[in-house]
């Protein structure tokens, strides 16, 4: 077998690649373009100035990582609502089952992916922090 031509071919390929546009994203300077269906940080949808969540417990039930804590409460109109809604981002695997399970379209996932924090307690997102930003 001729041992020279594969090396020449390889050299040609590397030289060709040298003049290609690098695929590197200079991350802090350039931002990635997040896909429309990217599963990032959760957000609780709002309707009529309050969270749509009815505290049906389907999301903590379906959650494979058991990271959602919901406690139901009763509001002035005797409607059921989530008095407490917490997601532990250290346990969450961002599978999106909670979004699929929700019968009232109360939770969705945003494109936000920079979830780093300094303290463990800061990773537990309460209802205030999860409410969708207007």
């Amino acid at each position, binding site marked *: 077998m001729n041992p020279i031509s594969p*090396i020449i071919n*390889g*050299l040609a*390929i*590397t*030289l060709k*690649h*040298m*003049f*290609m*546009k*690098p*695929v*590197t994203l*200079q991350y802090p300077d350039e931002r990635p373009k997040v896909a429309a269906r990217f599963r990032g940080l959760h957000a609780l949808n709002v309707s009529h100035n309050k969270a749509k969540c009815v505290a049906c417990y389907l999301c903590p039930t379906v959650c494979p990582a058991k990271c959602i804590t919901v406690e139901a409460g009763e509001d002035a109109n005797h409607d059921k609502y989530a008095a407490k809604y917490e997601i532990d981002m250290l346990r969450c695997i961002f599978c999106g089952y909670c979004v699929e399970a929700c019968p009232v379209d109360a939770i969705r996932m945003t494109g936000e992916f920079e979830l780093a924090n300094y303290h463990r307690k800061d990773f537990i997102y309460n209802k205030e922090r999860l409410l969708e930003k207007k």
Partner: protein
Amino acid sequence: MGIEILGLPMIYYIAMVAKVLVAFLFVLLTVAYATYAERKIIGHMQVRLGPMRTGWHGLLQPIADGVKLFFKEEIIPSQASTFAFLIAPLVALIPAFITFAVIPFGGTIELFGYKIPLQVAAYYDTAAGQVFDVNVGILYILAMSSLGVYGIVLAGWSSNSKYSLMGGLRASAQMISYELSAALAIIAVFMLAGTLSLNKIVELQSGFGGFEWYIFKQPLAALMFFICSLAEINRTPFDLPEAETELVSGFCTEYSSMKYAMFFMAEYANMITVCAITTTLFLGGWNGPFAVAVPILGPIYFVAKVYFLIFLCMWIRATVPRYRYDQLMHLGWKVFLPLALVNIVVTGIIGYFI
């Protein structure tokens, strides 16, 4: 200028020292920026960017690396043979730098009325009216490049670590087998030139407007010498002494801080020296169009050729994966050695009849 030493004024010695310093600084700076160039070139060949954040497009990266290595903790393993462990990086580094002394990097320039040959170990004898350099220059280079392996073997042995020892053993076996073929490959050049002085060899290649290079007369020898030199200085694809996948980091596993940096510098200085030797022996040295008429063009041609060969080394590194140990030995003993011997015989026969 009142002070005279051995019948020559002070300014002459200052010019000579300046020549040495310029050559040394050139090698040192090239070593520093070869690391940067390598990371940049290989990065772009892999469709990445390489260093980008230290200075404009990462231009200060070698300085940052140097400062970092300088301030790192010096670790000497408790079971190491301390003296050999300390001296090994120097044994590797010094031959790498002093080899450059006999390489002519330009013609003769005239400074303050004195002719100064652009070669560190050379002087212009006014009485004889010609340049004298080391007349066994290439033997000196071969001797020095063999000295370099002692540093690596010593480092491997004195570290008292299995990985280091394996790296050192591999280095010695590999360097000895490839040095034979490299030396035999350049014997064909001596047969054409009839001299061992590098200055004369460069002069002999100045025909055809500076294009009578030995690579055209001895293409096989040039190719073999370059590949064997790559193996001798442990460049990829022959970097078995420091094969990360098998030997962690080979002979420099136990080294840290500036001593590690010395091995790194030795590797790159060796690469520059090998490229400079290949340029001198096969690519016409500092020869090129108008190089004799315009002396300043000589060093420019020389540096351009050397940098092209350095680029070639990096290009090969980005392309070819590491050879297996038995393939390496097969290539050295069963391919290059017979080829080099055949080349010598053929050169001799052709030389006898022409």
